[in-house]
Structures are given as structure tokens and as C-alpha cells.
């Protein structure tokens, strides 16, 4: 986090080389491209086709400069010239100027020059170059090339071939970066165009990136086209909160509306890329269905009525005062800012003294598993000896993490060992895909680790063939001796299997070597922050247990939770049984997201008071007595924490609808109504309070976060030297972090992962084992509130091996009943012969009644799987 100059070890021998650009000698790194070296040292060489994150092609010829060579100076494309010792470069000679003017004129001869009506107008490199370098009026009096005006190449992207200058950026991106080469150059010479195969659209989760990297206005996004003109856009840098990768973005708005998100090239995180969900779900921000005023219901089921904030808050405060700490529960909060979360944790654990707080809905892992392993960063993927996938399909849940992993596997040749019951987006890049039988992941992993340790498998284990076990074992054995890190992506691969199965598996891997590090594959944007802030039973801020941190926080807060609390499942059971009376839903929708829908509904029905604080209405809100409108993405500032533990800044750009407010204000006000003044005036006060009181976050102050050196955020816990102020001075407008820690209390030791013992499911030939995983475009309220994305959610289906379909005498396309202990779903049969027999795959949250209709927490705990039967005919 400090400027490397002070920390980097002094290297004796000279590793750089000297290049002379326009008469000035400068240092370049071996292999560095001339165009990049020149830019780094302040000489901008114009370019269209070159992109720093993709292979150079040298097509546009705009970057021609004179370079010294064996036969004297000659015109060479700077984008294809690696710097060489003693190289002499002229970027300004008459020859260069003429060549560049010539290229520009060539690019313009067939270009429509329709800048006034072009989306790119005002931010177009071609337009800029033309103004800077270009010749005046056109000498081209001939007929220009004509093409049908914008044609859709996907649901989200349009292509205007007349504007295209054939720089090969979009096509290279689709193949090199996304691995979806569905757009390509077609035809030859000056009839060359970019296009798709007929009726085979550019259906990529990453299609929006081509719009961002197009150097002209040829590619435009349907969610943006003509929505705004670049020049009346004004923008702030922020972080995408659509998933836990935490891609850096700029948020642009026009009037008081968000119009566009653009990826920012953050080296440790997203390299400038975004997934289409993250790029386009800002539409939900201005959705007409946003909650904009407090609503109350006289009684359950009654129609909600608008009320004033004070009326709503009073109703909540009054009710809460009447309950015992153990009768109050908080569910959710994993999408809020660190500041919102800290404020809620203080409200619950300090003010209300209840520990019934859980950011997860039994759809994740225990906090010790998320936080307690040695942590990996995203960059570790590229240098790892091997990558082990022990989680969900990251192409569906953490798309840009998928891009980074794909890059590691494809360009850095890092072997990937995938443990997955069903094929995932990573499977094509996996060195070995270990296909375990649902519920038996731990068996499979233990067998692989045994093989890695030398005792290879002779027979099938956990449903995995011996060959596959031994192949995976060999890869990991090699990685472990290599001394490089082994990165485990750990998450909940299927909600129909218990979390401890995956924790048990991860423990088996980490036991093999101290070089094993874990990257939590958690989807909800700020789940890491929520757990860091203590939004889990038994946990306090800073990744500590009550036992560890009790004294510390007593010292800071003066009070703490009365006694250990319940997780979401237990809270819902208690609510159903009437022992929990008040449930506060923090942007949570248990009915849709809790693993056991039936229990979620019983719990919400059981509670005397259900308070929902959210941005959008959802299935659970119908149970709410009070609904408070919260400010959402782009409407509030603060910080968020990605899956690496990287704290980055969120900026507000537009105002929230109606009277909606940021959650931290709601928590702070409730606290004061209940008699505790947090003393928070601004969100920044909370940021600094966290830095001051939460040991892991020491140093993550507003001032530090605003330093240019920390533009990519700060990974917590902060390496100590980071807090020492350095070269690029802090923003003086904010004071350094406040109150010193009481010396009396020693900082608590952070959480370690606890051992677990799994259950081995008992095979049952009659029923199938259920697999359920998330897909990028689902029935989630944000996707559904984004008009462009909502239509991309596919109809719900049950995917089965054709053998199973025959065994049941059913047919693809049939609508059948998938029946479990607790419920049933009517779903259309889809063939998927990549699936093993004996399993049924039902996507999470695709039907109006999702896969959680089929799951029973009791069965999960007891049997370690969810069994389902197929029955023909509608019920």
C-alpha cells in the first residue's frame, strides 16, 4: 500500500534498459512495448487497435513511429516493438507525422463522420485524433461503403458496421479474454466486417466490454444508446456491488439518473472488465418499483399505507423496547456498506444486546470458514502452482473472477483442479474436473489429497473414477512441491448440500501444505464486510468471537450481547415457535433466498413484528409490518469489502428516490431513539470509527482510502507499514483516525477455522440427488428490476441426463413434478448429458417458487443431501 520505492528491496544489477524517445533517454523494462514505455514516460503515441490488456496485432497502423534498426531509421508500429537497449525512437518526425495523418485519412474515407448523432461523440478517440492530428476537409469524393445501420449482435449490443474501423479489439476480446469467439471478422479486404454467425448471437456474459473498448461508436449498448450524450455526463469512481469481486467502476449520470457504468482498470481486481450484470443492472436504481416512502401495515396481509419516517421509526422503536434481547433478530445485510453494517451491528449487539444477527441465509458457509483460512488475493491466481475449485460456478456467480481465473489457466498455464458435481463454466479450462456424487465432495477431496500424498486410488470414491482422482492428485502433488501457492476457491457449490461438506473438503486440502491459501467464492457483494463487522451469531467486529473480543468491545462500546445468538435458520425456527417476536430484514428476502422456503414462510408468519429495510419490494415484504425505503447503489457513499478482504470506496452519484435514506442513518437514528448516541454525523465518521475500533481495519481510514496509492483499495488486515503516512500526502480536509485504543485491553486474536465432521449420504436408488446453483440472470429483485437484463433470465427447468429421462419414461420438454420431502416444483425437462446419472439440476431462484421449495434444513443436516423424485403430470 505504500509507494514501492521505500519498500522494494534494492536490486543490485540493472534490470531495465535505456531507450531514447524524441532525444530523451528513458528507462524501459525488458519486453515492454514501445507504445507503453512511451506513454509511461509522458509521450502519447496515437493508437486504435492496441489495448494494454490484449495481445497486440499492429493492424490500424496509427502508432507508426521511426525506430532505429540495422538499416537505419524505419517506420514501425510502436505497439509491436519491444523496447531494446539503445533503441532510438522519433515520434514527431515529418515522416511520422505524414504517416499518421495518412492513416487517419484512410480510416476516415469510409467512416460516416456522423459524430453529431453518435453515442461516442465527445469521447471518441477517432474524433479526438482527427481534431489533433487530422487533415482538414476530406479528399475522398467517392461513394462511401454502405451497410445496414446498427444491427443487434446480442440482446445488449448493437453494431454499426459503417463506423467500424476494424481495429480487432472486440473480436480479440471475445476470443482472448472472454473465451466466447462468437463475433469475428467476415469477408476480406475493404468488405471486411465484424459479425456473428447467422442466428448465433454474441451471447456472452461479458459482451458489454466490447462497447467500452470500441475506439469508435461502432458498438453501442442497448441500455445506453441515446440515453445520454457523453458531454452532459458527469462521473465518479466507485465499486460495483453486484457481486463480491468488487470491480472498480466509474458511475456516470445525466440529470439525476445513472446512465452508464464503465470498468476501471484496477490491476489487482478487474483489469477494466465488467460482466454484463454489473454493467447494466444500474437500471434497477431508477426502477419505478423502488421503495420511496415508509410503509406500514395495520395488520399482516392488510394493504400497506404510506407514513412519515417518524411514525414508522416510532412504531419500530416502541415495539423493540418491549422485547427481550433474545426475542429480536436481524437477518441479512450482506449487500450493505461496511458503515451500514457496523451501525446495525452496534444497534443489535451494543444497543439491543441481541446476538441474533446473521448476514447469511443458510446459503453460505460458517463465518470461521469464510474468514479463518490463510487468505489469497485474486492476483495469487496468476502465480499459483495450482488452483482448486471447491465452490459454485464462478462464471455464473463471480464473472470477472472467472475472467481472471481463465487468464491464469490459459495464458499463465496454471493448472485448475475443479471439484464439481455438475459441469461449470470453468470446466473447459480445468486440467482435471473431479465429478463427485452430490453430498460426497469431502470423500472425493480426501481421496485426491491421499493420491497427492502418494497413496493413489484403486477404485471409485465419492462417485469419482480412480483415474480422475489420481490425475487430480498428481497435479496437486506437483503444485505442492513447487513451493508456489495453492489457491482454493471455496464456496457453497450447491445449496442442496450442507455447508460443512465443503468446509470439511477445504480443511482436507489446507492440511496438505502451508502454501494453501483460500479465496472465498462468496457472491453477495459485501458478505465479507458483513462478517468483518460481526454480522453473525457469536461474532464481533474484526473477525473475533465473543470470547476473544468481548472485553475489547465492552471497552469501546460499554456493552455487548447478553448471550450467544442464533443463525438465520435458528431465528426462523424460533420465530415460527414464537420465541422470537421481532425480525428485522436488512435487504434480505428469506422467502426467495433462504435455503428452506417453507421454514422461511413459517418464520415470517410467526413473528409479531417484521421490519423490512430494502430498496425494492420482494417476496418477503408481503409479511412485513413496516417497510423502510433504503438508499441503494449510486445513492450513498461509504466503503465495501470484496472477497479478498479489499476495502474500496463507494461514491454516491444520484439522489435516492422519495425519502429513502442510507441504512447507517436508519440504524443511527433507531439507536438514539433507544437511548444511545453513536455520534455519527457523516458516513465518514463511521469509516474512521471502524478504523479506530476494529483491529483488522486499523489504518483503513478515510484519509488512507483517498490516497492515490490506494486507488485499488486496501486489503485488510492492513500491513502495519501502510498506516505510516508517506509520499503522496493524505487529503488534509479529513483528520487522521480518531480515538486511540485503550491500552488496558490486548487486541483480540482473529478467528481460525474449526474442524467439522460431515455425514456420508446413504445411497437410495429410488430418488435422485438434487443439485442447485445460481445463474447470472435469475429472478433476483435487482435483475428483474433491470429491464434489459430481466428478459435474459431463462425459464426454470430441471436438467437431467437423457438416461434418467428414459428411465423415468419421460421426454425432453415435458413439464413434470420434482418432489421432495418438503415441497414440489412443476418444471420443464431439459436434457444435459454432461450431468451424471442419478442427479437432478434445478437452477436457484429461477422459478417464481425457487429450488428452495425443495430443500429442508433438517434433511440437509441429517442426510447431507436433498433427495427428489420425478413424477409426471401437473399436480
Amino acid at each position, binding site marked *: 500500500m505504500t509507494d514501492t520505492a521505500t519498500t522494494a528491496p534494492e536490486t543490485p544489477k540493472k534490470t531495465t534498459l535505456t531507450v531514447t524517445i524524441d532525444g530523451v533517454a528513458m528507462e524501459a523494462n525488458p519486453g515492454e512495448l514501445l507504445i507503453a514505455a512511451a506513454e509511461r514516460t509522458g509521450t502519447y503515441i496515437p493508437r486504435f487497435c492496441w489495448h494494454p490488456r490484449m495481445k497486440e496485432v499492429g493492424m490500424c497502423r496509427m502508432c507508426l513511429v521511426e525506430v532505429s534498426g540495422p538499416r537505419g531509421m524505419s517506420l514501425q508500429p510502436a505497439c509491436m516493438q519491444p523496447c531494446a537497449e539503445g533503441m532510438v525512437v522519433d515520434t514527431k518526425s515529418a515522416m511520422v507525422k505524414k504517416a499518421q495523418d495518412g492513416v487517419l485519412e*484512410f480510416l476516415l474515407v469510409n467512416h460516416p463522420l456522423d459524430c453529431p448523432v453518435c453515442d461516442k461523440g465527445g469521447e471518441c478517440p477517432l474524433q479526438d485524433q482527427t481534431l489533433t492530428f487530422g487533415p482538414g476537409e476530406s479528399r475522398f469524393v*467517392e461513394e462511401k461503403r454502405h451497410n445496414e445501420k446498427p444491427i443487434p449482435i446480442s440482446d445488449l449490443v448493437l453494431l454499426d458496421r459503417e463506423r467500424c474501423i*476494424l481495429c480487432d479489439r472486440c473480436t480479440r476480446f471475445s476470443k482472448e479474454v472472454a473465451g466466447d469467439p462468437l463475433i469475428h471478422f467476415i469477408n*476480406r479486404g*475493404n468488405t471486411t466486417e465484424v459479425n456473428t454467425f447467422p442466428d448465433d448471437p454474441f451471447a456472452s456474459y461479458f459482451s458489454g466490454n466490447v462497447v467500452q473498448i470500441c475506439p469508435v461508436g461502432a458498438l453501442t449498448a442497448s441500455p445506453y444508446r441515446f440515453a445520454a450524450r457523453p458531454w452532459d455526463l458527469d462521473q465518479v469512481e466507485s465499486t460495483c456491488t453486484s457481486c463480491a469481486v468488487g470491480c472498480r467502476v466509474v458511475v456516470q449520470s445525466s440529470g439525476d439518473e445513472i446512465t452508464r457504468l464503465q470498468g476501471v482498470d484496477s490491476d489487482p481486481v478487474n483489469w477494466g472488465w465488467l460482466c454484463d450484470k454489473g454493467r447494466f443492472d444500474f437500471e434497477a436504481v431508477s426502477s419505478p418499483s423502488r421503495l420511496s416512502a415508509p410503509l406500514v401495515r395495520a395488520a399482516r396481509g392488510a394493504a400497506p399505507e404510506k407514513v412519515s419516517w417518524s411514525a414508522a421509526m416510532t412504531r419500530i422503536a416502541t415495539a423493540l423496547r418491549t422485547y427481550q434481547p433474545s426475542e429480536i433478530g436481524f437477518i441479512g445485510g450482506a449487500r450493505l456498506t461496511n458503515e451500514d453494517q457496523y451501525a446495525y451491528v452496534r444497534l443489535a449487539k451494543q444497543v439491543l444486546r441481541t446476538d441474533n444477527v446473521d448476514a447469511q441465509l443458510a446459503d453460505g458457509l460458517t463465518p470461521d470458514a469464510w474468514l479463518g483460512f490463510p487468505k489469497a488475493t485474486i492476483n495469487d491466481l496468476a502465480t499459483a502452482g495450482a488452483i482448486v475449485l471447491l465452490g459454485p460456478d464462478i462464471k455464473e456467480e463471480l464473472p470477472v473472477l472467472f475472467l481472471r481465473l481463465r487468464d491464469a489457466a490459459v495464458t499463465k498455464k496454471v493448472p485448475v483442479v475443479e471439484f464439481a458435481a455438475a459441469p461449470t463454466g470453468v470446466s473447459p479450462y480445468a486440467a482435471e474436473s473431479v465429478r463427485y456424487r452430490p453430498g460426497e465432495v469431502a470423500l472425493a477431496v480426501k481421496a485426491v489429497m491421499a493420491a497427492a500424498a502418494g497413496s493413489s486410488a484403486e477404485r471409485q470414491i465419492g462417485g469419482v473414477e480412480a483415474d480422475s482422482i489420481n490425475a487430480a492428485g498428481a497435479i496437486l502433488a506437483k503444485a505442492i512441491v513447487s513451493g508456489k501457492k495453492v489457491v482454493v476457491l471455496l464456496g457453497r457449490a450447491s445449496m442442496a448440500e450442507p455447508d460443512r461438506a465443503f468446509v470439511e473438503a477445504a480443511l482436507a486440502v489446507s492440511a496438505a501444505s502451508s502454501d494453501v491459501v483460500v479465496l472465498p467464492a462468496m457472491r453477495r457483494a459485501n458478505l465479507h464486510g458483513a462478517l468483518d463487522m460481526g454480522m453473525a451469531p457469536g461474532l464481533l467486529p474484526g473477525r473475533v468471537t465473543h470470547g476473544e473480543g468481548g472485553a475489547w468491545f465492552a471497552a469501546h462500546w460499554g456493552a455487548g450481547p447478553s448471550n450467544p445468538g442464533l443463525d438465520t435458520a435458528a431465528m426462523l425456527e424460533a420465530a415460527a415457535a414464537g420465541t422470537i417476536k421481532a425480525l428485522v430484514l436488512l435487504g434480505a428476502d428469506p422467502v426467495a433466498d433462504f435455503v428452506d422456503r417453507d421454514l422461511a414462510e413459517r418464520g415470517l408468519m410467526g413473528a409479531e413484528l417484521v421490519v423490512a429495510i430494502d430498496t425494492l419490494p420482494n417476496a418477503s415484504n408481503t409479511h412485513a409490518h413496516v417497510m423502510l425505503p433504503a438508499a441503494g447503489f449510486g445513492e450513498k457513499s461509504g466503503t465495501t469489502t470484496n472477497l479478498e478482504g479489499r476495502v474500496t470506496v463507494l461514491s454516491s452519484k444520484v439522489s435516492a428516490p422519495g425519502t429513502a435514506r442510507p441504512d447507517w442513518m436508519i440504524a443511527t437514528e433507531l439507536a438514539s431513539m433507544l437511548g444511545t448516541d453513536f455520534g455519527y454525523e457523516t458516513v465518514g465518521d463511521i469509516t474512521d470509527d471502524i478504523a479506530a475500533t476494529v483491529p483488522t481495519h486499523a489504518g483503513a481510514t478515510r484519509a488512507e482510502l483517498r490516497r492515490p496509492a490506494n486507488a485499488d483499495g486496501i486489503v485488510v488486515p492492513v500491513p502495519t507499514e501502510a498506516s505510516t503516512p508517506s509520499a503522496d500526502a493524505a487529503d488534509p480536509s479529513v483528520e487522521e483516525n480518531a480515538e486511540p485504543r485503550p491500552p488496558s485491553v490486548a487486541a483480540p486474536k482473529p478467528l481460525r477455522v474449526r474442524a467439522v465432521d460431515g455425514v456420508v449420504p446413504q445411497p437410495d436408488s429410488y430418488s435422485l440427488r438434487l443439485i442447485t446453483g445460481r445463474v447470472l440472470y435469475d429472478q433476483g429483485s435487482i435483475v428483474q428490476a433491470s429491464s434489459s437484463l430481466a428478459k435474459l433470465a431463462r425459464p426454470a427447468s430441471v436438467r437431467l441426463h437423457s438416461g434418467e429421462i428414459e428411465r423415468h419414461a419421460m421426454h425432453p420438454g415435458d413439464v413434470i413434478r420434482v418432489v421432495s420431502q418438503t415441497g414440489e416444483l412443476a418444471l420443464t425437462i431439459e436434457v444435459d448429458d454432461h450431468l451424471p446419472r442419478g442427479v437432478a439440476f434445478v437452477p436457484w431462484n429461477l422459478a417464481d417458487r425457487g429450488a428452495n421449495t425443495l430443500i429442508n434444513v433438517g434433511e440437509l443436516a441429517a442426510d447431507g443431501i436433498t433427495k427428489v423424485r420425478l413424477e409426471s403430470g401437473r399436480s
Partner: protein
Amino acid sequence: MPAPTKMISTRWDQADGHTLNGYLRTGGYEALRKALAMNPDAVVDEVKAANLAGRGGAGFPCGTKWSFLPKDIFPRYLVVNGDESEPGTYKDRLLMERDPHQLIEGVLIASWAIKAEQAFIYIRGEMPHAHERVAAALNEAYAAGYIGKNICGTDWSMDVVLHWGAGAYIVGEETALIESLEGNRGMPRLKPPFFPASKGLYMQPTVVNNVETLANLPWIISNGAAAFTSFGNEKNTGTRLFAVSGHVKNPGVFEVEFGTTTFRELFYDFCGGIREDRTVKAFIPGGGSAPWFFEEDLDTQLDAGVVGGKGSMLGSGAIVVMDDTTDMVKAAWRLVKFFAKESCGKCSPCREGTNWMEKIYRRILDGEGRPEDVALLLDVADNISPGLTWPPKQTTICPLGPSAAAGALVSSIRRFPVEYDHYIVHGRPIDGVSTGIYRPSLAPAS
């Protein structure tokens, strides 16, 4: 009068010259056995000593090219360039159709010399007869044990594969040829870094050789470098095939000693003179890419160095003669049109520039030329090939675009400005010239 010297065209008139029997009867595959008895490096040295220049156009010494292969990086490949499509060029097709075994023997000798893992014979798509002849010969040679497992009973094994092109002139360029052979669009790669010798087919070391170049190897190995260098002059050894077309009485393909014969001898002795005993107005010495020569150049020898010294090239041995009735604007336009049509589209200057120049030409030919058009043509050309010199400087990756700029266009404008002016002023060619008037009716249907 100089007589043709037959070294690689000996079987062209032999009825069964294309069959294995016909080939074996006339000493076929002896050179291969001899080469196999030699150490591969010795074969390379022999070819170096023969100073065999590449016949594909660039004229680069074959043996030297082979020795550029990085030591002990394998696998390596040999790719045979049989894409012959440079305007005026007609020789490789004859070598493939009439003496395929000679080519195959050359391929095997080269593969042995460079320790190739595999060889590919890339034949232009529009030449099915050449495919048939080479395919038949390959099948015979496989059956007879000259190719494949344990070649000629030795423990050396290698496959030779016939590959079909599909119609794209640019694929003749060696790096585009490699792209095409990899199943991609035939777009050239930038050299450096992608010199075939280091990063060629599948990014492995690769030698690309022209058909005629390889056809010389059996003779060189059988008769030795010394015998080979006794033909031609010291810089231009052996023989070369020249296709003489256009306004000569008897057009034809002739194998003559390299470097000694003159253009005049070729036109008047071999081809019986200019049609209707007219005079030479201009001629192309080495394919459609080459700058033109004129009457005063007739006594130049067919010597790569000398022709190069005079600002053009012998290229692929394609000589096109234009008599005094030729419409120079029209002739130049047709060549520019060719390059415009064949540009791969990778480099902006070539993709846009060649087509722009062709459009300007069309206007001039259609009688809608503007006084500034000739200067404009030259400036657009200069932006593709700065300075309009020969060999051409490039703002592009490969020389295709620059050839369109610094070849026929510049030659004709510099030599015959009057003809351009006349078109521009009067909307028609100067009196007495033809080659047919450009007809809009022939514009391709879209």
C-alpha cells in the same frame, strides 16, 4: 541465339512424366537416396554452395534461409508455397501438373536437410488439376515407400500432406500462407517477431519454400553444387523459368540460364518478337507487383541484382509485354484493381488506400477525372509506401499495399503523364491506344 537450358522442365513434354514410372525411368528419386546417405547438414551445405536463390519472388538464398532455423527447437515444418497467383506468373502450376514427383523429391530432400517433422504442399485452390497430379504422385510415392514410414528403407519417417487453398492472392505471402494453413483467415503476420524460421506454423520453426525452388533440389543433389553453379553467373546460379505473356508473337514459359539471357533475347528470339512487329512500350520484368521497364531496358540481363539495381525486380519470373498500342492508364488501373481486390484488409493504409486509388482510376477512365487526381493518386500512394521508391517502404505489414502504390501506378504516371492528362481533359485515352475501353456494364453485380 541462346537455347533453352533444361534442368527442371525436362519431363514437361514426356507423356508419362507425371507418373512414378515415368519419373523413375528418368532417374527419379536417385537424388533422395543420395541425400539420405548424406548427413542433413551436408545437404544444407550443398544447397548453400549451389547458391540457389528462392524462386518465389524475394529471391532469398535457400540454403541461408534453412540455416536460420534455431538449433534444436523441434518440431519444425516445411511448407511448400504453391499458391502461384502473382499476375503474369505461370510456372509452379506446370511444375506441379507435369512433374509432381520432382517436386515431391525436392520436398523430401529439403525435409531431410532441415529435419522437418512434417511437410505441407499448399496448392492454390483454383488449380484442381495440379491437386490431382500431386495427390496421385503422393499416393504413388507413399505406396512405393518414398514417403511415410521408413522412407527408402531407412529409419527416417515423415508425412507429406497436400493442402488446398481457396482463392486469396495474399495467401502467397509466407506468413499469410501459414495462417491459412492453420485454418485461419490468410492475414500476414508482422516480421519481426513472426519470422517463419523462428515462429512459423503453430509458432514452431518453419521453412516456406516456393515450388520452383524445391524442384531444383534433386538436380543439385544428383549433379552437385559445382555443376549447378556452372550455369548462370556467380550471383544468379542455375536456370529460371520465365513466363512471357502479353504482346509477343509466341508467348510461353521458358527455362533459361539465370542471369545471362537478356529481355530482348527472350522477347525476340524465344517469343518471335512483338505482335505485328510493333515496338515495346513498356514491360513488367517480374510480376504485377514490379515497377515497369521500357524499351531502353530491353538489353538488361535477367539478373536479379541488375534488375533490382534498375529499380524493379525479377520477382517470380513473370514478364508481361505491352506494345505501343497499349492504354497505360488502363493497364495500370487493372493492376491497382487487382491489389485493391486482394488486400487482406488488415492494415488501414492498404485496405482503404488501394480501394481509394482504384476508385480514382475508375473515375478517370469513366471520363470524370479531375485535374488534381494524378497528384492525389501519388499522394495516397505515398501514404501507403512513403517515398514511392523500390524496394518499397511500407506503412503496412506486408508489401502488397506498397506494391499497388510503388509499382505500375508510379511507373505509368511518371512515364506517361500525357496519357493521364488526356483522359482527364478529354475523357478518353490518347489516340491509337486501346486494350478495350472500360465498360461500366461490366461492373460486378452486387
